[in-house]
């Protein structure tokens, strides 16, 4: 059993950190609770920068958060909420999402798949969920690559990409996934793995 955890912190403590952060993201200490939540979100941002050290990723995460907040603000403005309360809500929403988002990202960054799997085993979570989760997390980049490759291959065969005509892209990807799942299952079973 692997006892060397990343950053020498047990996954349970990392999970407790995530739960604590999730509670702090919503807990109302007083009427004006922006200060302590701003401090938490800033601390998380700094911690995230220290952990990732990848400016492109940090930029993407911040852009994602801002777009999400902007869309929520537009929604409220369109549907008749006053400008002042929209601004208040947007700031509150940005703080909440920042706290939760960075909290969860820090957890994923500091806890590799094998630690999550090991931790799930200790919690007696069914193998189907833990193995499924590990595979889902590992194959996200593979799926991105498969989409890009399929588009290039289909274009080289004369396919013109249109939004409503996605079957020429989706079917090869789905079949690729079906083949991949069978091959992976055969490979795992031949090594003695059982669900």
């Amino acid at each position: 059993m692997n006892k060397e955890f990343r950053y020498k912190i047990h996954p349970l403590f990392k999970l407790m950190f995530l739960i604590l952060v999730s509670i702090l993201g919503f807990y109302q200490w007083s009427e004006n609770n922006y200060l302590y939540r701003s401090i938490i979100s800033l601390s998380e941002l700094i911690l995230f920068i220290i952990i990732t050290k990848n400016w492109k990723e940090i930029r993407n995460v911040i852009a994602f958060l801002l777009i999400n907040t902007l869309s929520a603000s537009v929604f409220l403005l369109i549907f008749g909420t006053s400008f002042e309360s929209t601004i208040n809500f947007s700031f509150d929403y940005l703080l909440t999402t920042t706290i939760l988002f960075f909290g969860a990202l820090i957890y994923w960054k500091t806890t590799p798949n094998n630690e999550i799997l090991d931790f799930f085993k200790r919690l007696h979570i069914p193998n189907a969920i833990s193995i499924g989760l590990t595979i889902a997390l590992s194959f996200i980049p593979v799926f991105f690559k498969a989409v890009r490759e399929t588009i290039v291959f289909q274009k080289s065969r004369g396919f013109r990409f249109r939004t409503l005509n996605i079957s020429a892209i989706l079917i090869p990807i789905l079949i690729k996934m079906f083949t991949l799942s069978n091959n992976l299952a055969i490979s795992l079973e031949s090594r003695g793995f059982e669900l």
Partner: protein
Amino acid sequence: MKISTKINKFAKLSLSEVIFISLMSSANFVIDILVSPFLKLVFTHVIAGVLIMVPINFIFITITKYSIEKFGSLTLYLIIFSIISIPTNLFGGVAGIYKVIVGLVLGFLLDIVFLPKNTKIRFLTSSIFGSIFWWISVFTIWEIFNLPFVFAFSNALKTNSFINSIIPVSEFINLPIVGFGWEFLKFSIFCGLISAFTVIIGFLIGYRLFMKMNKTSIFKMLNQYLNQKTSVSS
């Protein structure tokens, strides 16, 4: 050896099925993460969710369910989907570990609505009840976390004369919606029914894609291998 094609719906999921479900949920996650920020910015949270995001998710859900008919496939699918979407704003609007519980409950309910064998009945139950269950759970999350989307959307429906002239919502639901209760449930069902129209399209696209995939020789070969394995093990 006689190959049995009869599927036991309540049998345990095999390893390759678990892997396929997890790959499908990661594919759904990737599509959602690519599409949702832009759609939410253009169409706003509720409209993008009701009319576009949920139907997209239902395309993947339908393909998964038709590929693996066993009970529990969608529970596993949504548990995995909810866990990988914890650090994002997908599946509920805000990041958080609460999504695992929502995924478990919603997945179980979707497994139930996909139970009918007849495609037409399944088509209706999964589209109507599926989208109603989906929106009850999402609206509940928004209300628990004090996000004013339900209030703002219901208020807009009350004041918008164009929508009221088509469907007189204010006559049968006491708008705007504040907190939980009977009116909240009625409003969730109403939004679920609106969403059901687009979910039906999502279901049909998913079913059509599955039927196209089902005709390919490689899929037939893999499916035959799976059935052979299942019949030997049972």
